[in-house]
């Protein structure tokens, strides 16, 4: 019985010690994160690039349709030309959300450079003539709206080795808003984010 008590106490003590040693996991305040910068791209960089792009777009008047109507925007190719495995939607989604909030732009999910983002718009039309579905509820031909504008761009990375052994990494967020009717770029924006740190840091 004494042995059992000893073992139990030792186990409890060890567990207590180990939990004390482990670093606590904390949830980040995404609106006020003063955590150390990293050489790679993190959400703060995407926030900054997206905010600058949207502010510039709204100020330029490129998305102001006469009579207060909304433009239909298609997402074209946004190339990740960095050494990191990033999903360019981290940038594009923020821009889309903010443009939708502006009330000046609505994004089509039926067409994009990579095919339909939401294939259901087309799939649901394949129900035409299917007796199992009330045909009055199936979408009619000619109801989808084609895009007026297209958003394209790339995220570029340049690594520079400095004389003192440090490393400088430059990230370029380049975006273009093209009017599909004419093929003319109505708006272009670039945000550059530079980071300098240890040459041993890995930025991919």
């Amino acid at each position, binding site marked *: 019985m004494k042995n059992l008590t000893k073992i139990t106490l030792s186990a409890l003590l060890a567990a207590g010690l180990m939990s004390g040693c482990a670093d606590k996991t904390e949830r980040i305040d995404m609106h*006020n994160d003063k955590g150390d910068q990293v050489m790679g791209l993190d959400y703060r960089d995407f926030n*900054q690039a997206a905010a*600058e792009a*949207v*502010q510039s777009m709204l*100020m330029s008047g490129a998305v*102001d349709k006469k009579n207060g109507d909304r433009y239909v925007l298609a997402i074209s190719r946004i190339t990740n030309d960095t050494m990191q495995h990033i999903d360019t939607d981290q940038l594009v989604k923020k821009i889309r*959300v903010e443009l939708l909030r*502006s009330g000046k732009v609505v994004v089509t999910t039926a067409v994009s450079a990579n095919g339909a983002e939401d294939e259901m718009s087309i799939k649901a039309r394949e129900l035409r003539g299917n007796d199992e579905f009330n045909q009055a509820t199936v979408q009619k031909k000619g109801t989808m709206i084609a895009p007026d504008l297209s958003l394209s761009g790339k995220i570029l990375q340049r690594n520079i080795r400095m004389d003192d052994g440090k490393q400088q990494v430059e990230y370029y967020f380049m975006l273009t808003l093209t009017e599909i009717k004419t093929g003319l770029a109505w708006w272009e924006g670039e945000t550059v984010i530079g980071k300098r740190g240890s040459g041993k840091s890995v930025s991919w």
Partner: protein
Amino acid sequence: MKRLIWIAALAVMFSGCADKGSYVKVVDDSIKDDIKIENIIERVNSDSGLKELQIMGENESRDYMKLRYRVVWFDKDGIEVKSISENWQEFPVYKNADFTIHVVAPNEKAVTYRLFINK
């Protein structure tokens, strides 16, 4: 009588400020003496219908600073209008130099704002 007129005038002035509800605030005490807000220009862009805001200030210290700002927007009823501007945005402030912050409202509903400047 004169005193009454003064009190009435002051009451009107203060109620005007409260109704407007917009302000710019330097939130960090350590930079309050160095960062001076000199001018705030507001306008509604006639093409977009969006409110634009330009804050001009000066860094009176001898140090370069990397500051941050965020803007919270509200509609005419005082309800917050969500926007990406709520996130802190970095901006450089050079020693003994002016700085400018230029922001646009996220949509036409956003009419009042609170802009915070922090370290």
